[in-house]
């Protein structure tokens, strides 16, 4: 505990080493950031970024991270962010140049522009797993605790195994959604029958009658000025929505699994010096989290359907209740998924074969309260309460984490070859901008 590990400033004895605390014990994470103090840092960061047209943002990023890292303390040691602003600036310049090319290509009407645009998207999707690894690697390599750097094991091959399935499935869903809009071509390709939009005879007749009257007055006008009803009607086969619906349901069912392999991949490859992290969460735990959320969503949806579609919940108070529930739905969803997934991600990590074990217990409702009050404060202060909001968020996320210590904390050792792949780090550097967005 805190009193067993004297504060850094208050050195109990002038000589080394500090007496060993008993094991096993629990070390809490302390966060000592202050909204008032951070306001000055945050504000000066923003002002200087404005004044320098964004160039200062690299320094701002480092000061920001240094503030949050430096105020996070566990077992008497604070975290330290060690990347240099110049490194970040150089990569931001490259990233900005790439971004400008992308925007120009997006708005250009030429074929070359189109190729560049799609080239960017394809390259981005194809390289996304590598980029994820590089971003993690950059972030961790420049994070240290007690003079030991964190690391991220660059397992590119496994990254593709983790990120390719959700990517491919997402693209399939998008592709399937496109099918009904090309109904005629699809029918031809698969030899399907044309779908007849049959309507009760009298309805059809009256519609036709109206259409006749309508169209006479649009004669001689451009196609764009003629209302829909007078143009050749747009044909769509409703059965062609079925693949998209099925694929979406499948995607939703697979989502907890995808999330599980993603978090497991991220946690497993972290190391503090030579001490590797391991992850022992089970896939069912993810399904449990998502299952409750899907259930709540379905409940709200069906109550609305009942309210709007029948007389069962016709009273005004039901309208009020449902309206309120819908208003709370989005912040509660974000708070629920964030807190539960965070608890799982951190709470199922072992360090160095179980010598240390992380525990996280972010309260769902507490976090939802922080999120909602933050939102209102930032909104009504026109952004000036952002510093306060960030400090509050960090406090609730960090102060509910602790470490179960089963061995001496003094025996983490630094990895030997630190400088391994400068080029990789550079690319990672470029895209840490994207991570921030």
């Amino acid at each position, binding site marked *: 505990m805190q009193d067993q590990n004297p504060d850094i400033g208050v050195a109990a004895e002038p000589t080394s080493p500090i007496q060993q605390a008993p094991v096993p014990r629990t070390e809490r994470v302390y966060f000592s950031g202050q909204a008032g103090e951070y306001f000055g840092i945050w504000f000066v960061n923003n002002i200087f970024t404005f004044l320098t047209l964004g160039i200062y943002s690299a320094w701002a990023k480092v000061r920001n991270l240094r503030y949050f890292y430096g105020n996070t303390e566990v077992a008497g040691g604070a975290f330290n962010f060690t990347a240099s602003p110049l490194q970040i600036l150089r990569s931001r310049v490259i990233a900005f140049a790439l971004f400008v090319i992308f925007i120009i290509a997006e708005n250009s009407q030429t074929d070359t522009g189109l190729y560049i645009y799609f080239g960017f998207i394809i390259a981005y999707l194809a390289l996304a797993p590598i980029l994820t690894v590089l971003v993690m690697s950059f972030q961790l390599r420049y994070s240290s605790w007690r003079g030991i750097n964190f690391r991220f094991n660059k397992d590119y091959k496994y990254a593709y195994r983790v990120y390719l399935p959700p990517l491919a499935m997402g693209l399939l869903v998008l592709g399937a959604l496109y099918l009904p809009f090309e109904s005629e071509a699809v029918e031809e390709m698969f030899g399907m029958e044309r779908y007849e939009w049959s309507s009760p005879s009298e309805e059809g007749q009256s519609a036709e009658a109206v259409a006749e009257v309508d169209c006479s007055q649009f004669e001689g006008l451009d196609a764009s*000025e003629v209302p829909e009803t007078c143009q050749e009607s747009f044909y769509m086969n409703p059965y062609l929505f079925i693949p998209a619906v099925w694929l979406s349901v499948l995607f939703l069912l697979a989502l907890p699994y995808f999330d599980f392999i993603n978090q497991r991949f991220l946690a497993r490859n972290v190391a503090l010096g030579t001490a590797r992290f391991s992850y022992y969460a089970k896939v069912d735990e993810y399904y449990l989290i998502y299952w409750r959320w899907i259930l709540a969503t379905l409940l709200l949806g069906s109550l609305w359907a009942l309210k709007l579609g029948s007389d069962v919940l016709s009273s005004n108070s039901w309208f009020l209740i449902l309206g309120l529930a819908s208003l709370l739905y989005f912040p509660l969803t974000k708070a629920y998924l964030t807190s539960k997934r965070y608890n799982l991600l951190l709470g199922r990590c072992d360090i160095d074969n179980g010598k240390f074990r992380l525990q996280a217990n972010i309260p769902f409702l507490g976090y939802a309260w922080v999120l909602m009050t933050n939102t209102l404060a930032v909104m009504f202060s026109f952004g000036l309460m952002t510093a306060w909001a960030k400090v509050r968020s960090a406090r609730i996320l960090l102060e509910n984490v602790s470490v179960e210590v089963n061995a001496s904390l003094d025996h983490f050792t630094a990895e030997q070859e630190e400088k391994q792949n400068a080029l990789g780090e550079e690319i990672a550097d470029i895209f840490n901008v994207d991570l921030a967005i």
Partner: protein
Amino acid sequence: MTQSNKASPASLPGIYYDGKSSSRQSCWMHLTPDGYANFDGLSLAPIKFDEIIVPDRLGNTSRVLVLPNGGFFETSANDALDAMARSMSSASGSWSLHRIERTPLLIVALLLLAISVGYLLVDKGIPYASEQIAHSMSVSWSESLAEGAIVQLDKYYFAPTKLASEEQNKYRDLFNRYLPKESEFSFELLFREGGVIGANAFALPDGQIIVTDELIALAKNENEVLSVLLHEMGHVEHRHSLRSVLESTGVAALFVLFVGDAEHVMEWAVALPSVLVQAAFSRDHEWEADGYALERMQAHGLDSKHFANMMRRLTGQFEVPKVSEKTEPKSDADNKSEGATAKARDVENTAAEESKEDGESLFRYLSTHPVSKERIERFEAAVK
């Protein structure tokens, strides 16, 4: 917080890490008069203070000094460390980011500056820049904004007109007679039945102007319709749709710069200020289009009272039977109207609050149209 720097400025308490393992060694760092740092109780040769990397101070966070031997010295005795660093360096010292960050007077001054610059940007800079940019862009940009809008409007809101064709021709002639000279836009008048939208007129950014049958039925004479048409031409000539796009982009960029990523809030926290500001821009545009109509009417020797009368009728201040229920909430912030209707500029805010005088003051800031009374008074004042 607890700053334990009772020791002389020449020594600091802290913890030494050798950079190879995570073991902590609590010790004091002493500075010798000849500029060397000694570490109590450690078997370390004295280190020249100049070779130690001392990070900038940042709030009250503890700092990690990087030693040339690969080790680190972590200390939270920030004041003592600053005093020590100052005594070692000859030149710089007074200026530091930390000093700026923790001087309340300076922060307040910068804050006031930022608020005034922000206010000026939103109130003057962004509208002015948008106007300049919009007028320097070719007409095809405005035209591309209107692409497909009429098809969407017809699909979701309008029905074909029931107006007789001689009546239509009468208004077309009037419209063509009063077209602005030397315009880059090709204007066109379209007639539609308004349905839920009721009596209203719209301008699409490419110069198509739509009048509802209900508006024509509501008007007492041709000149009243004409005054509305001139207002709509004002929207087109002043390129208000393109300017709105540019203005909202500017405001969103400005706000995102300040709030940063949305980790700590819900994403829609950024929405309210931009809705408020964009509604203000929209009110300015309406006022400008009114000004255009007024000028044109005076230039042609038309009585500006017609516009005032038309506005009265539209807001129901004359005892005229309502042509249709105006239930469609129309504001640029309304998400449902994104796409087609957001691109169209209407002459009158159809929101119900307009008729309630007591509600007006509150809704004023959310309304996309200026208060009708002021608009009417402006045209009536011009008569005298």
